[in-house]
C-alpha cells in the first residue's frame, strides 16, 4: 500500500512533491515524473474548484482541481446547480476497493 492510499484510509489527502522542482507529482509516486528527483509526502489543500460535472441517478459526480495541478473525480454534494469554476472543498476521502473522494460546493 502506498502512502497515498494509507492517507486516504485515514481521510487524509496526501501527495508526493518533488524536492528539486517543488511540483506536486501526480499520480503520486516515489520519484518526480518531471526530473526523477526524490520526493517528500505532504497534505494537499482540500480547497479546489469545479472543472466539470454530471449526474447518475441522484448522485452528482465531477472533476475537481486542487492546487491548480491535480484533477480527480469524485461525488459532489450540492443543493443548487453547480457552476463551472465554483469553489469546493474535499469533505471526505477514503480507500476501499478504490479511491473515494466526496466534495462539497462552497456557497
Amino acid at each position, binding site marked *: 500500500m502506498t502512502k497515498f492510499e494509507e492517507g486516504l484510509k485515514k481521510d487524509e489527502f496526501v501527495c508526493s512533491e518533488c524536492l528539486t522542482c517543488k511540483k506536486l507529482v501526480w499520480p503520486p509516486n516515489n520519484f518526480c515524473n518531471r526530473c526523477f528527483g526524490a520526493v517528500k509526502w505532504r497534505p494537499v489543500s482540500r480547497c479546489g474548484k469545479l472543472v*466539470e460535472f454530471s449526474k447518475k441517478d441522484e448522485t452528482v459526480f465531477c472533476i475537481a482541481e486542487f492546487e491548480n495541478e491535480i484533477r480527480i473525480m469524485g461525488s459532489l454534494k450540492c443543493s443548487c446547480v453547480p457552476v463551472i469554476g465554483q469553489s469546493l472543498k474535499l469533505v471526505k476521502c477514503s480507500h476501499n476497493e*478504490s479511491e*473515494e473522494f466526496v466534495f462539497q460546493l462552497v456557497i
Partner: protein
Amino acid sequence: MRKVALTDFGLTEFNKDDIAIDSLMLSAVKSLFDSAPNLSQKDVDVVLTSTNDNSKYLSSIVSEISGIRPKISHSVESLCNSGANSVISAFSYIASGLADVALVVGAERFDSPGLVLEWDKSRGQYKHPIYWSSMFTKSHVRKYGTTKEDLAIVSAKNHNHALDNPCAYFKKTYSIDEIMNSKNLTDDIRLLDCSMPCSGSAAILLASEEAMKKLTDSPVWITGIGQKTLSAGFTKNEELASMESTIGAATMAYKMAKKKPGDIDVAEVHDAFSICEIIEVEDLGFVRKGKGNEFVRTLYETNDRRINPRGGLIGAGHPLGATGIAQIVEIGQQLQGKAGKRQVSQARVGLVQNMSAAATSSSILILES
C-alpha cells in the same frame, strides 16, 4: 524506409459467444487465408496478436495452431488502441527490412478485463467508461450547444450503416426517438449512445512491395502514421471537449502522408460513445471545432457513409483488441472497392482513428489505394 501494403483481410462475426481467445483468433486467421489463395503459412515471418485478454504466450499459440513458424512473434496490449498499434508495429518490422510478410490478428471476449482501467487514481471510484464520456459530453454540450438529438443521430447513423455489415453485433436500426428514450445511464449518456463490449476477431496481412506482388493485385498502402500518448490517467486531457492525443496523432499522420483532412474520402473513427464521433470529426480537421454535430447530422440526412461505413463501434460492436484491426480492414476493403453495400464511391484515401482509455492515447493511419 520500405513501402508497406495491406493485402488480405479476415473477420469473424461480433457477438456475445463464449469462445476461447485463441479460437477466436484462429477463426479470423482462417477467414484471411481462405480469401488469399496465393498465401502460404511459410510466407509469414511475423505474427502479432492484439488483445486485452490475460492469456500468456498468445502469439506463439496462435502461430502454432495456424501452422506458422514466424521469425518474430509477440502480443501488443494498449487497451482499446491495441489493434492499430499492432498494425503499426507490423508496419515497422516490414518498413525497416526486418520482415517481409506480417500477420496481425486481434480478438477480445465479451468479458474482457480491459473494460476498466483499475490503475487510474484520477478516476477514484468512477472508473467505468460512462463517467469519462459523461464529462466529454457535458463539456461539448456546454461549449458548443450539442443536443441529445445530435448525440442520438450518431447512434442512428451508425446502426443504419451496421445493417450492411454482416459481421456487426447489431442487426437492427433504431429511430432517433428510440435512442433518446433508451435508458439514461447518466444525465448525459443513454444506453444506445454506447458501444457494446462483445466477442470478435479481425486479421490483416501486411507485406513489403516485393512480397505483395505474389499476394494481391489491389494493394492498399499505409502512407501515414501518427501516435500520441498523453498519459494513462484520465484527467491529463485538460480540454474536455477535445481529444489532445487525437489532434497530435492526426498532425503526424497527415504530415507523413502529405495529405490534408480534405483529402480523406472515407474514415473509421473510434465512436466508443456518440460524443466521441462528434469530437473526432472536429479534431481530425474534417470540420471546424464546434461544428461536428452539424456535420454528422448532414451525413445522416443525406445517407452519406464516409464516416464509419461499417457501423463504427456503436453499430458493429467493440471487441477491444480487434476493434482497431476491424477499422483498418474496413478502410482497406473500401479502398480496394470490395465493401459491397457499404462501398463509398471513388474512395482513394482513407483514415483510421483508434484511441484508448478516454482518449489518453490515439493511433491514426492514413491508407491509399
